[in-house]
């Protein structure tokens, strides 16, 4: 018997998948295919963002857009955790803090350039993801929420209390990006245009990093791991029954989220040249979560819109001074009431886009003559295991 099945974890396959034999319509060509359209659209937005500073922008606009892009990175990371894997995380800024502090400490104490700190930051984030996720991912969602909240607070308070993190005033004088002896602070003249502002360099760095973060998270969401995440979100037991180690998959979502958050933290630290515990209060976890939910959980364009809204709305409302958070709150309530699945829900497609022409006419599925539509199913009498 044992010889029949071998000694590896997996026994040899009995089955091979049959080839599909029902003819499927061709995929739509060109821009009518939703994926291609969105890619193209993303590219246009990216180029527009790259060109924007040359056309019309003030340091203020650039600065708030830079912050907004950090929010986009954070939201994309949290989207992996909340949107794809369905794990409610109320302490996401913990990872943001880990990234920012790790990079900040290495930069100010050891004089590393921001680039050099990145590998260490990645390690720290993976470790943080495992430490936070490891013991808690067995918990049900609502308990997970409070535990993650607790971890977020623990990280912030620890940073606030320790000497190495600079205590309540944090770390200052984080070095800027530098390559081969040239740093952003030095400025440069390219194509006859004088780049003398660090603000601008960070903007470009963040456009690229934010773009990569968006593409990376979106790709993960569509691949093997993404399907596993979504399956865990939709039905954990069924996912487990599909041969998915749900614990490991959830942990991977945490780690990916941690990496995204940590890298965003690195960029924030060097953008502001400073890291302080006030940047990691619970409110910011809630805001990033809001970006994800407001935009549409699991939806890349939605989350981007959500992040831009959450970060830019308070800035745009600055002129309302004292009223701005009041208005912000009202806007949030109204948006959710009218768009409960988010501004741009996952699975939504623009109406003029189709993956392919309508599927399977009746003639094409003559083999399945028994395909009679069934009416309402009987309610199941036993509870799920």
């Amino acid at each position, binding site marked *: 018997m044992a010889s029949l099945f071998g000694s590896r974890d997996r026994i040899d396959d009995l089955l091979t998948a049959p080839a599909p034999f029902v003819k499927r319509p061709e995929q739509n060509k060109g821009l009518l295919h939703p994926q291609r359209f969105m890619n193209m659209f993303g590219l246009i937005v990216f180029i527009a963002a790259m060109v924007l500073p040359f056309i019309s922008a003030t340091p203020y606009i650039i600065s708030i857009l830079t912050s907004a892009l950090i929010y986009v990175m954070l939201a994309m990371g949290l989207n992996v955790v909340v949107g794809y894997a369905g794990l409610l995380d109320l302490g996401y800024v913990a990872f943001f803090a880990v990234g920012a502090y790790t990079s900040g400490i290495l930069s100010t104490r050891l004089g590393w350039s921001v680039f050099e700190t990145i590998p260490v930051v990645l390690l720290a984030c993976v470790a943080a993801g495992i430490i936070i996720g490891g013991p808690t991912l067995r918990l049900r969602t609502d308990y997970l929420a409070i*535990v993650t909240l607790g971890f977020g607070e623990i990280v912030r308070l620890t940073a606030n209390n320790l000497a190495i993190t600079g205590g309540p005033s944090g770390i200052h004088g984080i070095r800027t990006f530098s390559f081969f002896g040239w740093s952003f602070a030095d400025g440069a003249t390219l194509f006859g245009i004088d780049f003398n502002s660090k603000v601008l360099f960070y903007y470009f760095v963040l456009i690229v990093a934010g773009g990569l973060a968006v593409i990376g998270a979106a790709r993960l969401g569509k691949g093997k791991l993404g399907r596993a995440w979504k399956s865990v979100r939709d039905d954990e037991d069924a996912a487990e029954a599909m041969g998915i180690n749900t614990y490991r998959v959830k942990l991977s979502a945490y780690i990916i989220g941690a990496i995204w958050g940590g890298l965003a933290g690195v960029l924030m630290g060097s953008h502001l040249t400073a890291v302080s515990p006030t940047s990691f209060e619970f409110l910011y976890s809630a805001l990033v*979560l809001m970006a994800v939910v407001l935009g549409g959980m699991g939806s890349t364009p939605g989350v981007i819109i959500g992040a831009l809204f959450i970060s830019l709305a308070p800035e745009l409302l600055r002129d309302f001074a004292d009223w701005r958070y009041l208005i912000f709150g009202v806007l949030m309530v109204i948006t959710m009431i009218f768009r409960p699945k988010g501004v741009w829900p996952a699975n939504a497609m623009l109406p003029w886009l189709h993956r392919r022409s309508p599927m399977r006419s009746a003639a094409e599925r003559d083999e399945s003559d028994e395909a009679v539509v069934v009416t309402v199913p009987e309610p199941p009498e036993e509870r799920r295991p």
Partner: protein
Amino acid sequence: MTQLIWNGLFVGSFYALVAIGYSMVYGIIKLLNFAHGDVYMLGSFTGFLLLGSVSGLLGTWSLPVLLLVLLLSMLFTGTIGVIIEKVAYRPLRSSPRLAVLITAVGMSFVLEYGIRQIFGPSPRVFPVRLAGDPIFFLDARITLPQIVLMVIAAALMYFLQRYVMKSREGRAMRSIALDTQASLLMGVNVNKVISRTFFIGSALAGAAGVMAGAYYGSIDFLMGFIIGLKAFTAAVIGGIGNLYGAMLGGLVLGLLESFGTNWLGGQWRDVFAFACLIAFLSFKPTGLLGERVSERM
């Protein structure tokens, strides 16, 4: 030691009052009502306004007036709770749960900054201060107002417990918590029960707000935020959705904080409390009294 326990229990009873609202709402519509802490803050400001208007009576009739103000504030915050539910949560009843969470945060902003617009950002001082000479009990310094407040808190919780366990309305609440669909089929008016739950939870939070105002004296527009987090934690420790759990959780959290401060110093207190929470949940993932909750899932 006894002082630590007493301090913990006293703070804990405030947490418990607020946690009950959190827990009840959660039990019934599975919503983490982030605006709940702000209802507590609203209660404080209501009490502040009401007391201000009857300040002439305060000299002689302090306690009865205070109780009346407490009652009126509870009515007011309860009503506000019902309105919040109608406006911000009911339209989203069938939406993803996180959507409602966001409107809850939105409502929280609205309440906080609404009050800020009215009363300004600096703290207000309550017109009446509960003070009294301490009595010593087993080395613990206890004041009369502390006892009065704890008695009021205990009484409120007792009546709530009677109401939920014995009355017809309470039964309806519990049935919805167990199975909303089935309750609907059994002819329970779900909307009405949810409104009632919000009323009770918000009224209790409002009561805690007035009491905190009267005891501590200063109130401000952000005072609900921290206690909201604490109450949420307390509710989870006790097993969220469970009435007794919320009460117990509040007291446990109060004790944890009291002892944590003593052992590790104030700056590590919350780290200690949260670490205990996490360690505890890792071993008993449903909270102290969470068994009953797991049936509800």
